[in-house]
């Protein structure tokens, strides 16, 4: 609550293009936003580039924030859009063959809670880039298939199918890492 109030108060200073307010806002949100960027990027370096570009976009396009919802949520959406732009620039062919191997593995169990952030992040990064973007947007950010389709210029059916394949891929990878049966705690 206090964090949200601080961020909102810094928003007013950033509107006046106050560099001190901008720096304070950066320190308040940088860590959380880097976590968002790292889920989309293939590496930490790429995540930092996305974070830098995202904050520059936040401070230069502050007028586009219409006050609907929280300011932190708007900054988060800017980071996601910046990550998607980076993905579009570095679009790679999806490895459909690799995904096909994971289709039959979804029945086996895995443990998510016991995994460290870095391990889970490493598993997500093994996803092909298109699948990774769709998985992050739907599962973590909460976008609908319609919104994903509009943003990535794909059909809703493609979004649904790629999400399903992404889940299967991650379950397989987690299973391989843990080597155990899925247990819901």
């Amino acid at each position, binding site marked *: 609550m206090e964090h949200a109030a601080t961020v909102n108060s810094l928003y007013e200073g950033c509107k006046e293009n106050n560099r001190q307010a901008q720096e304070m806002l950066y320190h308040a949100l940088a*860590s959380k936003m880097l976590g968002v960027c790292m889920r989309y990027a293939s590496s930490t370096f790429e995540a930092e580039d996305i974070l830098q570009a995202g904050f*520059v976009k936040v401070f230069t396009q502050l007028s586009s924030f219409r006050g609907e919802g929280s300011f932190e949520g708007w900054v988060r959406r800017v980071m996601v859009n910046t990550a998607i732009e980076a993905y579009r620039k570095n679009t790679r062919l999806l490895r459909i063959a690799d995904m096909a191997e994971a289709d039959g593995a979804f029945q086996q169990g895995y443990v998510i809670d016991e995994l460290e952030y870095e391990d889970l992040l490493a598993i997500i990064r093994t996803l092909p880039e298109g699948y990774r973007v769709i998985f992050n947007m739907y*599962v973590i950010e909460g976008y609908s298939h319609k919104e994903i389709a509009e943003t990535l210029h794909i059909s809703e059916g493609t979004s649904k199918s790629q999400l399903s394949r992404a*889940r299967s891929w991650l379950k397989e990878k987690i299973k391989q890492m843990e080597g155990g049966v899925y247990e*819901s705690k």
Partner: protein
Amino acid sequence: MNPNDKEFDRRMREKFKNFTPGVPVGLWNKIDDALDSETSKPGKIIGPTRTRWKFTPRWAAAVLVVFALAYWYNRPVEVIYLQGKVGIPVVVGEEPPSPRPVLQPADEPGDISPAKSVFTGKVLERINRISAEMPREGTVRDDDTQPSAVEIQLVATDAETAPDPIVDDPLETYIIEVLDLQPLVVLEEAEEVMLANVGPSDTFGVSRLLNFVVGAVDQRAEKAITFSNDEEGSLRIDFNFNLVKNRKSK
């Protein structure tokens, strides 16, 4: 959606909800440099969207130029009158509160002086007397009964015409009257009779030419047809019928 999928999604979401990795030192400097390069771009507007008007010397110079042009366009212009006086007319809409001064009639610049030299001294004396009684164009009467056609405020600057009441009183208001047509010269009765008795001058008319032609054809002393001018100067043809009768009788 598969319940397993829902559960899987929920656990993933919860896992990354509080994921806050460490930010590398120096990343803010890169963002700071990027913001500086963005602001230095021409035409780039960053920050507040409101435009602030500043009164710069450019604006002051532009306003000054506009006022100067407006004054130049509406500046007072000299007007040259036909009578030779140079003045700056300003049309006023109200009658002046003070009474108008009495002015002596100004000499008209030579419009009747050639005619004056033709007549005798008596005639000239009478002309001057009548002219003195008549109101002239450009003069003022100290008489409110006279109707005013146009009211013009004159500021004359002609130094040649002296004494010129207009120059002496540059800001006085004068009344210009439209005069009735008057005969330029008025003769005494004796001169009129003398002029009336003078016959029409023997001008070279068509009758002379025609008589010459008839004389060339008819060599006799008496012509059968003669041309002359009547009292009014019109061409008159005279037939000598007696001459024709005598020819027949012979």
